C-alpha cells in the first residue's frame, strides 16, 4: 500500500521539512503527497517537481487555506483508506493535524520519528532526546510525524508527476482563521539554515541581540535563542531552539550566552560543529562544544565580527 505525506506549505511554496518527510516516507512505500490549501496550485506544482513522489493529490478549497486542523483532518481521514501510513513533518502544523487524524482513525501516532526500522517499527526520542525508544505497533494503519534533521531532503526539482484534484470533505465548521503575526526576516529559516547563531539569557536584553545578528549576517546564518531568552521577551517565540521549540542540526551552531540546559541541548546537539561563547567556564554547554571560548560575550562578539571581516569570511 502507498504512503500519504501531508505537505506543510503556504499555498505557494512547499516548506523544507516536507522534503525530509518525503524521504522518510519513501522507506515505507510509494509516496503520494497531499497539498490541501486554497489557491494552492503553485504549491502543488512545486510538490510535483519533488523527486521520489508518485502523485500529488490536491484539495483546493477555502476551508483549507490556513491549514486548520478540524477541516484538514476530516479531509485526510476521507483519503486514508488508500494508505498504509500517513506521514507528516514534525512541524507545528504536522503536530497540530496528525494526532487528530490518528484519533479519528482509532490508531496510535508515532511522533518525531528519527529512524524507520521497518513498516511497523520506529526509533523516536523521549526525555528531550536523552533516551531513544524503539517502538512498534500492530495497528492497521500508522500515523507518524518525522524529525526533519534525521532524514535527508528529497530533491525538490526534476520530478514531474500528475496532480490529481480531490474532493473537499465536509468541513466540521468548528474553527476559523483570524490572523497571523509572522516574524519577517531576510535570514534563512532556522530549521533549514547551514549555520545557526543563538543567543541566551547572557545577552541580558533584546537590545543586545544585534551582537548575535552581526555575527550571523557575516556567516549567512539563521538566528535562534534559548527558552530563557524567549521567555524574557528578547526575541519572538519562533526563535526557540530546544525540546519544546525547534530542533536544528546545522553544520555549525554557535551558542552565545547560553548555559546549556538539557532542554536546549535537546534541540541542537546533533549539529555537526558546536561553538560556545560563555563567561562561565563551568557552563554545561562547553561539554558538548567542539570549540569553547570562555569570555564575556559583550567583548568577544564584536571581536568575532571584526575577525570574520579581517579574514574575509563571507556567507557561502
Amino acid at each position, binding site marked *: 500500500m502507498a504512503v500519504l505525506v501531508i505537505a506543510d506549505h503556504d499555498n505557494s511554496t512547499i516548506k523544507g521539512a516536507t522534503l525530509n518527510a518525503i524521504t522518510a516516507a519513501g522507506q515505507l512505500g510509494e509516496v503520494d503527497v497531499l497539498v490541501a490549501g486554497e489557491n494552492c496550485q503553485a504549491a502543488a506544482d512545486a510538490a510535483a517537481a519533488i523527486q521520489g513522489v508518485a502523485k500529488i493529490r490536491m484539495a483546493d478549497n477555502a476551508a483549507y487555506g490556513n491549514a486548520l486542523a478540524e477541516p484538514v483532518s476530516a479531509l485526510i481521514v476521507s483519503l486514508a483508506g488508500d494508505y498504509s501510513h500517513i506521514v507528516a513533518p514534525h512541524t507545528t502544523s504536522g503536530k497540530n493535524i496528525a494526532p487528530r487524524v490518528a484519533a479519528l482513525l482509532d490508531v496510535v501516532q508515532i511522533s518525531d520519528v528519527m529512524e524507520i526500522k521497518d513498516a511497523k517499527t520506529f526509533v523516536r526520542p523521549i*526525555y528531550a532526546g536523552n533516551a531513544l*525508544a524503539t517502538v512498534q505497533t500492530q495497528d492497521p494503519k500508522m500515523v507518524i510525524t518525522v524529525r526533519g534533521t534525521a532524514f535527508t531532503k528529497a530533491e525538490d526539482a526534476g520530478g514531474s508527476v500528475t496532480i490529481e484534484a480531490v474532493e473537499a470533505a465536509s468541513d466540521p465548521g468548528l474553527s476559523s482563521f483570524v490572523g*497571523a503575526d509572522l516574524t519577517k526576516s531576510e535570514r534563512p529559516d532556522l530549521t533549514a539554515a547551514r549555520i545557526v547563531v543563538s543567543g541566551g539569557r547572557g545577552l541580558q536584553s533584546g537590545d543586545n541581540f544585534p551582537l548575535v545578528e552581526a555575527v550571523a549576517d557575516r556567516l549567512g546564518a539563521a538566528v535562534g535563542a534559548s527558552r530563557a531568552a524567549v521567555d524574557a521577551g528578547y526575541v519572538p*517565540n519562533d526563535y526557540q531552539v530546544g525540546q519544546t521549540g525547534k530542533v536544528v542540526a546545522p553544520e555549525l551552531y554557535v551558542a552565545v550566552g547560553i548555559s546549556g540546559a538539557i532542554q536546549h541541548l535537546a534541540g541542537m546537539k546533533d549539529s555537526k560543529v558546536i561553538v560556545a561563547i560563555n563567561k562561565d567556564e563551568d557552563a554545561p554547554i562547553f561539554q558538548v562544544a567542539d570549540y569553547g571560548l570562555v569570555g564575556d560575550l559583550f567583548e568577544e562578539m564584536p571581536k568575532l565580527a571584526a575577525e570574520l571581516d579581517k579574514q574575509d*569570511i563571507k556567507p557561502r
Partner: protein
Amino acid sequence: MKVLVAVKRVIDYNVKVRVKGDKTGVETANVKMSMNPFDEIAVEEALRLREAGTASEVIAVSMGEAKCSETIRTALAMGADRGIHVLTDLEPQPLAVAKLMKAIVEKENPELVILGKQAIDDDCSQTGQMLAALLGWSQGTFASKVVIADGTANVTREVDGGLETVALKMPVVVTTDLRLNEPRYASLPNIMKAKKKIIDQFTPEDLGVDATPRLITLQVDEPPPRIGGGKVADVAELVDKLKNEAGVI
C-alpha cells in the same frame, strides 16, 4: 462553565534521566517526580479563568498509578476545586488517555479542557488533539493566549513562523505553550486546604475504556554521546579552526 485540566506525573525537568541497564526504559526509582511543566501552565490558566468569573469550577484529572494522586493534590493546592484520578498500572499512552478523558468529559460536561502541549517524558504532543477529535470539538493547540467570549474561544497559537490566532466554537480543547502564563506556587495554607479536597477515583473498566497500550516499546537506548570540551584561546583561533580544521565557514 466547568473547566477540566489534565495533569501528568513525570520525572522532574531538572533530573538528568538515565537509561536502565537492561534497556527496558529509564531509571525511575528514587527519582524526583513532578507535575509536567506544561500542565502547571494549564492549571494556572484554568484558575485565572475562574478568578475572572469565566469559569465556575476547575477539575484536575490524572491517569496512572496510585502516586498520580500526589500530582492531582498539587493541582488542588494551586487552587483547583476537586480531582479525578483514573487508577491504572498500564502506561498511559496518548490515545488511551484521550479515550479516558473523553469518558470523564461525558460525565462532567465541561466546556473547556486544558492540557499541556506535550509531556516532557514521552514528548508525544498528541493527547489534546486526540481528545478534541474523539469529542468532535475544536482544538487550540500550543496556545500563548486564550480569550473566551460569546461561545467562542480566540486562541493565539505559537507556530513555526511566529503567532497565529484562530476563532474556535465552544466547547474547546486547548493545549498550552510556555508563554501562556507563569504558574503560581501553592501557598502553605492552600497546601493544607488541598488535603481536604475530594479526589474521585475510577478505573478504565469503570469508564468502559480499553486502556491497553498499543505502542510497544521494544528497547530504550542511550543516544550516542557527543564528545565536546574543546577550547580555543581567542576569536582569532576560533575563526582559524572553523575555517581550516572544521571547514564550516
